[in-house]
């Protein structure tokens, strides 16, 4: 999976957040879970999965190296 695919997935999720089709639906799933609420609960789990893919395939591997930069880059005291 490429970095670009991960970023695309995150954008798609941001779009899917706007669940206009459930706006006026008070249906209770399993007898207790409002459908508009259940959608966003599942959405949150999917988001966690997407961030797992981000750290797996789009990790900023240079951050660690940058953090350990040479002393000559240190600012004057």
């Amino acid at each position, binding site marked *: 999976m490429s970095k670009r695919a991960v970023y695309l997935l995150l954008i798609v999720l941001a779009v899917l957040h706007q669940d206009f089709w459930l706006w006026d639906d008070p249906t209770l799933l399993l007898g207790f879970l409002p459908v508009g609420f259940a959608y966003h609960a599942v959405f*949150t789990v999917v988001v966690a999965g997407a961030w797992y893919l981000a750290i797996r395939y789009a990790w900023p591997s240079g951050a660690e190296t940058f953090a350990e930069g040479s002393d000559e880059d240190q600012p004057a005291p």
Partner: protein
Amino acid sequence: MTSLVIMAGYLGLLVVLGIVANRFFRGTAADYFTASHSIGPVLLLMSLFGTTMTAFALVGSTGEAYRVGIGVYGMLASWSGLVHAGVFFFIGIRLWAIGKRYGYITQVQYFRARFESDLLGLILFPILVALVIPYLLIGLLGAGGVAQSLTQGAFPEAFAATNGGLPPWLTGLIISAVVLFYVFFGGLRGAAWANTLQTAVFIITGLVAFVLISSKLGGLAAASQQVLQAHPERLMRSGSITQLQFFTYFFIPLAVGMYPHIFQHWLTARSAKTFRLSVVMHPIFILIVWAPCILIGVWATSATLPDGSLVVPAGSPPNTEIATMVHKLTTPLIGGLLGAGIMAAIMSSLDSQFFCLGTMFTTDIVTHYFGEHRFGDRQRVFLARCFIVAIVAITYLLSLAEPRQVFPIGIWCFTGFSGLFPLVCTSIYWKRCTRAGALASVTVMATSWTLLFRASDYGADGSYLFLGVLPVATVFIASLLALVGVSLITQGPSETTIEKFFPHGGIAADLPSDTDMATD
């Protein structure tokens, strides 16, 4: 009284934790302010989550769900799952790397260097402090409302005006004293440990509350069916939230990128990899904490006692919905445990906020203007503590004024921080971003925020919208346009600064050496 004893015992435990953390204190400012970059993945996850989940998440979300319905989860929780983790990933890791490399411990230090501007720091410091104060206020108001509800009847003579419950002024005083104690003794390490304990406590007790309350209401299905019959509008968003309003809540969680206390927690990380657990688990933790609160808030609209009266009567004081549900539907023992859990959530944010204020004052004002060597480590820590006490005193006095709902105060506070998000984002990803652009952005943010806050009757109109959207959208866009527009027509940063923050010409994300780029 049982609830009170349990909550008091819990506060005592935190005091002990502060003393133990003090034994690990290395006596240096670096250790006090950033725990010597020694925090591992679990502690970072718990402290970041504990810090971002405030009275707003538990008390405010329940109260808002009571008034607006299930849409509150999508407005804030699911957006936060996506956006908070994204900010940790795209902003937090980069700021950790920059902070660690150049020794920054505050945002103002970083922005002064990145934009080569002392003036920017001077403007930003009071704005950040002013925005943290309402954040602290949320904690004190939330704690006051919860303790008052849970201890009703414990002191019928001493506190008759609050039905025998602890008055908010006393709760605010106790909470402030306990948090100050363990922060003073333990430094940021003490706060991180306390956050870990407190996050575990409020997650577990929140789940217990949810199970017990639903059981008392006849089960999950019975509790929700009651709402379907009495208040079906609370089970959908039509009529309470417009689609545009719902979308613009996207901007609110961006605030996490500019919280000074989160910046400081990022810097405690041992390595970049330490962030991984936080990025993935933060959304799951949000689900675990917010989902029960939202359902409890929605159930509270229709839940009745055996005599047919509402558990949460119409016109109940703000910020008391969840505590009233717990108080009336569970035993005093459980009430005490849950009260401790709610207090834990509130204090796990207060500690980091108290702490960062002290750090900012000593670093950005004292050390910056009086010199690095004018004060020793111990003196700097002492000055930090003095400033913290002063700000806590101001916040405490504000909390004694007419109580407001936690939710709208939180939204206005987050709006200000979100309006500063373009500044931090472009500082990392756009090297052409200039000092004049940064100054314009901060000025436009402060001006637009003030004008809109005034138009909302200083936050009293909790449903205030500007052009049909949340004020945060306007503040964010105005701040971004000012930053980009002014940067494009003014002179860019010096080569030295560009080389310092963008050493290989790429974005800070992948800043690294050529070798790393090749292996990426």
